[in-house]
């Protein structure tokens, strides 16, 4: 397992926007990691896939939306975005409906993704 580059970080996002601050916090950790030179990947897992909906807006109490943050990811060189294929089906979504480009990953491939990163942070 020691052949994994020490700077590979996987941030797992398991919550949608607005219901809690987990999504924004996870994205902020990803940005901090990238700002510090980490090679960051994101996995949108379970409910986390709803963070990628194009139609999302600011919250009813003017909470910031996540769309500008998602669109900013390439500026931090965060280009490796994975999305839980099973959850896409659960929420009746397809890849081309997402706000940023992402690659599908099947449930049996999620464990590979975990093994390939030096550090995995769950949000």
């Amino acid at each position, binding site marked *: 397992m020691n052949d994994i580059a020490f700077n590979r970080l996987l941030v797992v996002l398991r919550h949608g926007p607005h219901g809690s601050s987990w999504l924004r916090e996870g994205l902020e950790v990803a940005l901090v990691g*990238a700002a510090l030179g980490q090679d960051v990947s994101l996995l949108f897992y379970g409910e986390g896939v709803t963070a990628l909906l194009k139609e999302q807006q600011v919250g009813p109490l003017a909470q910031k939306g996540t769309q500008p943050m998602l669109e900013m990811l390439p500026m931090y060189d965060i280009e490796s975005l994975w999305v839980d294929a099973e959850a896409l089906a659960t929420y009746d979504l397809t890849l081309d409906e997402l706000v940023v480009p992402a690659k599908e990953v099947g449930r049996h491939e999620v464990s590979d993704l975990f093994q390939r990163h030096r550090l995995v942070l769950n949000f």
Partner: protein
Amino acid sequence: MPSSEIYRYLDVGRNKVPLDTESYLIHLNDWTPAVAQAMAAEEGRELTDLHWEVIEVLRDFYHRFEMAPSMRPLVKAMTQTYGPEKGKSIYLMRLFPDSPAKVGARIAGLPKPANCL
């Protein structure tokens, strides 16, 4: 969004602009080029056309993404707008000694970059 209490006021012509403890604007809408000039003058910095290019890029970044950039994305945004010669941290360090992302955000009237050491 005002994030902190007023610590002091900056004199800009006949106006007084409220600042926080780290001299960032309390109200981002207060920003004008004259505010940037006054902030820079206070710190003994002179704003040349090259500085204004960076300020433009910073303000555009905030407008698009609602966050002030740290160094890495600022360098990338400079590259995209002005090419690789100006998309270098050393270039930005010469224009804004100390910390280009923090100093630049302050003078450009943005909040302090959150993910920036």
